[in-house]
């Protein structure tokens, strides 16, 4: 692949090679015979090649392509990308364009873009690997006008695409209760556990099943039970990203599987309302619960890279009461 222009890839096609070969053949025939009909054909072929290069370059260069993800993007799962196209040419319809992305099953035909036209479309694709995409393997492809060259222009990214690991379902580690040995003291919080926290007056939104009927009768006001939240201990999922040989595919494969399992465990635990953190060598996410924590853990997993065992940093220290679970 010859890179002539930044973000451009220009490659001569097999047809283009054949075309050049035919030009040579016609040139030899014309020179040997002096036949001006052949000279005319040769001149036409050479002129067509030149004009084709100019038109082709203008066609692809005149169109900008920007992509951004729609929602979360998980590796090896269907995800959506918003593609924004704009033809900046004042005159000249951009045509014979294909949108190309590694996540698409094949090149996607784009109808001709009139001068100045903007178009937005959402495409469904699949990223094969987790990670952070800063230079998308997506862009515009064209063999316009006669297929001598195949020109590819890389798309711009509106923002980086974080491809989360594909969560692998696995046995979820049991979280020991907060009160168990090693747990840390905590403030009691309102929740849906079994222990009674206090009695108070009813307020809109309270569950009628929590109504304390006897006390209500006594006080002639509606009184409800307030329960304590049941809390497990915060779990810190840990992945050892130190590998003996970072170029060894088997080691890397093992690490990827561990990351996928870790993502699966984290999603399950967080969906149950638990506090989940994440640790690896050189990476740490403090345990918390909720949607925001889900994104933090998944992003940390997406960005996790293998480190050589010899120079690997130690795991960050745990907070008191956190429960570490090694995911392998």
């Amino acid at each position, binding site marked *: 692949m010859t890179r002539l222009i930044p973000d451009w890839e220009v490659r001569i096609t097999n047809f283009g090679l054949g075309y050049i070969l*035919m030009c040579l053949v016609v040139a030899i025939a014309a020179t040997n015979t*002096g036949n001006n009909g052949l000279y005319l054909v040769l001149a036409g072929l050479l*002129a067509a090649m030149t004009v084709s290069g100019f038109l082709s370059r203008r066609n692809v260069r005149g169109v900008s392509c920007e992509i951004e993800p729609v929602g979360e993007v998980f590796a090896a799962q269907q995800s959506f990308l918003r593609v924004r196209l704009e033809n900046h040419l004042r005159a000249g319809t951009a045509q014979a364009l294909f949108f*190309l992305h590694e996540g698409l099953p094949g090149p996607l*035909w784009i109808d001709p873009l009139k001068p100045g036209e903007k178009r937005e479309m959402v495409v469904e694709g699949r990223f094969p690997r987790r990670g952070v995409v800063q230079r998308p393997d997506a862009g515009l492809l064209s063999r316009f006008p006669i*297929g001598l060259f195949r020109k590819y222009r890389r798309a711009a990214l509106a923002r980086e695409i974080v491809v989360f690991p594909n969560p692998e379902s696995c046995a979820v580690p049991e979280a020991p209760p907060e009160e168990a040995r090693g747990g840390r003291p905590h403030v009691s919080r309102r929740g849906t556990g079994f222990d009674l926290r206090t009695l108070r007056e009813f307020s809109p939104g309270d569950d009628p099943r929590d109504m304390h009927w006897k006390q209500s009768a006594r006080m002639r006001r509606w009184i409800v039970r307030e329960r304590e939240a049941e809390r497990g201990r915060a779990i810190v999922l840990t992945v050892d990203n130190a590998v003996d040989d970072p170029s060894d595919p088997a080691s890397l494969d093992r690490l990827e599987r561990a990351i996928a399992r870790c993502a699966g465990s984290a999603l399950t635990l967080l969906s149950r309302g638990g506090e989940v953190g994440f640790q690896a060598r050189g990476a740490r996410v403090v345990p918390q619960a909720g949607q925001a924590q889900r994104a933090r853990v998944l992003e940390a997993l997406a960005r996790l890279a293998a480190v050589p065992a010899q120079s690997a940093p130690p795991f960050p220290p745990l907070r008191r009461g956190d429960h570490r679970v090694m995911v392998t």
Partner: protein
Amino acid sequence: VRRDAASAKPLSDGLRRAYVEALAPAAALAPIPLAFTGGASIRVIALFEAALALLWARARGGRPVRMPDLALNLAGLAYFLWLGYEVTVLRHGLLRSVTYLLLFTALAKLASLKTPGEARTALLVLFLLTLAAASSSTHVSSLLYFAGMAWLGLRALARLAVLADFEEAPPQRVFRTVPTPAISAVGLLAAGALCAPLFYGLPRLKGPYAVAPFRMDDNLSTVLAADRVDLESFGAAKRSDRVVMRLTAATEDRPRVVRLREAVFTEYRDGVWTRGPGSARARPFPAEPPERRGREPVRIDLALFAKGFLFLPYGTESVRLERSRSARALSDGVLQASPGQRDLRYEVGLARPGPARGAGESAIDPRLVPPEIAEFAAKVAGDETVPVRVYRRIEERLRKGYVYTLEPPAARGDPLVDFLLRSRAGHCEYFASSAAMMLAARGIRARLVTGSYGGELGIFTNSIVVRGENLHAWVEADLDGTGFSVLDPTPPSGVPEAATRGSLWRRLSALGRELEFFYDRRILGFESLDQQRFLDAARDGLSGVAGAASGWKGAISLPAIRNGLLAVAVAAGVIIAVSEWRRRRRPMPPATRAYLAVRRVLARRTGFVSPAIPPAEVARRLSEALPGSAEDANAVVALYASSAFGGREVAAEEELDLAERVRRLQRLA
């Protein structure tokens, strides 16, 4: 980046249909010229077209033909046997055998497309057919073929280029939009413009393979090239409308180039004129470029097959031939091109205007005049001895008693005697020959001169095109002792028009001829010598520019530079002002126009509206100030915001709606 779609992947029916549809139009046109050049028989071409139409119709119907491999192999084997029979028994010749093989292969490929690679093979076969047609065509209509193939070829290649990235049948709209008509036109025009310099610049190592089959009529070439002219062939030459030459002259010089002198004849025997030995030593014209004297030269582009005489206007002072060409000076101011030249370009410098006088001293020997003619001359002249009056009598006699025709009756005996005494019908050469002979018989020095008279003003340029019909003959005679003056005894009906523009049909016909001339001379017969000419002309042009620059060196002064810079600055200022004016005149988007109208309505109700007030606030204030306007104001502002800040296009109906809302607001206000 994904790799090319695999060439070996089998084609689906939809994709096969698309490939056939992309290739069929070009395939239909590719072999057509072969039917006219002997490259293939018309029946075979018709058969090919019919089979192609069937394939195309099946493809368009959604059921593209796909021959099974077995049938294809059998057909190939059968054709192989046929080829052996054709080569050994029928002996059609190499071109036909190859053409038939290509036609068969093209059909077989189109009927059995299995992979994209095979479509490319079919394309290659079609290209070879095109090459065969292009290389064997010599008619000017080949230009139409080239143009048609360029258009269909571009369409086919553009569509094949798109199909290469489809793995299934493309949507129907793909073929409708690829290539767009505008890009086809731009591409073809640009390629055509680039094609011309490439064609003329590509190196030629050999002479042209083929030239026009009939560059000039045989009779015409004989008339122009031989050192003799006979009365009977001259008429045939005059019936030809082939272009003999093209000349360009300054407007004030045009009347002087109407009559061009070619050759002088002084010896007549049995209907054939030959050049005499000449009475004086040949004196060549100087080749000094006339431009040096500040006068525009007459430029002549003469078409010749073999050696021939140069056409020169009366009053020629200098003749400058193109580089590497030569001409032999003969007596009586006649120049003859050196042998082996097919055409010749030269420039002629004219002397100051004056009476036309023929150069040289040679004249018809009165002793060689046939006695019948001498006797007739005596009868016509009577007792008149003054040369001018003798000529008047001869001219009057010829004009009153003789008929001009290009097809004189067959002569019995000497054609000239037959013309004078019996048939009394002939063309200009009969009239001129008779007059010259009769003058000689009366002791007046006279001779026959051939050349051309008049011409057609060019279609595209101010040049004059001289055709075979403009060939003419007249007499030069010394009537008053001041030299050979020009006498034209041909009746006016027989003298070609001095300059014609012609009717529309004639112009169209002339346009066709010009194209034919261009194709014959500039395309089909183009050779290395022409390239050499072009280089010479370019070199001369450059040296002319250098000379002009050195001449201007002294003329450039500081005020001139200052004035020049001032003119450039003024021109730049005008350009900037015009572009700014055009930019300001650019129509405002409808939503913005409506919003500004709303702001004006608000200003009318409340006084000054600061530019800092944002659109939503404008709508709010207007709805407060103008009860009942809230809906319209909000709608206008909303559309303005989405148009100006969101890049949304306003549809035609929305534009009408905006205008209606603004009108309502104005009425309310």
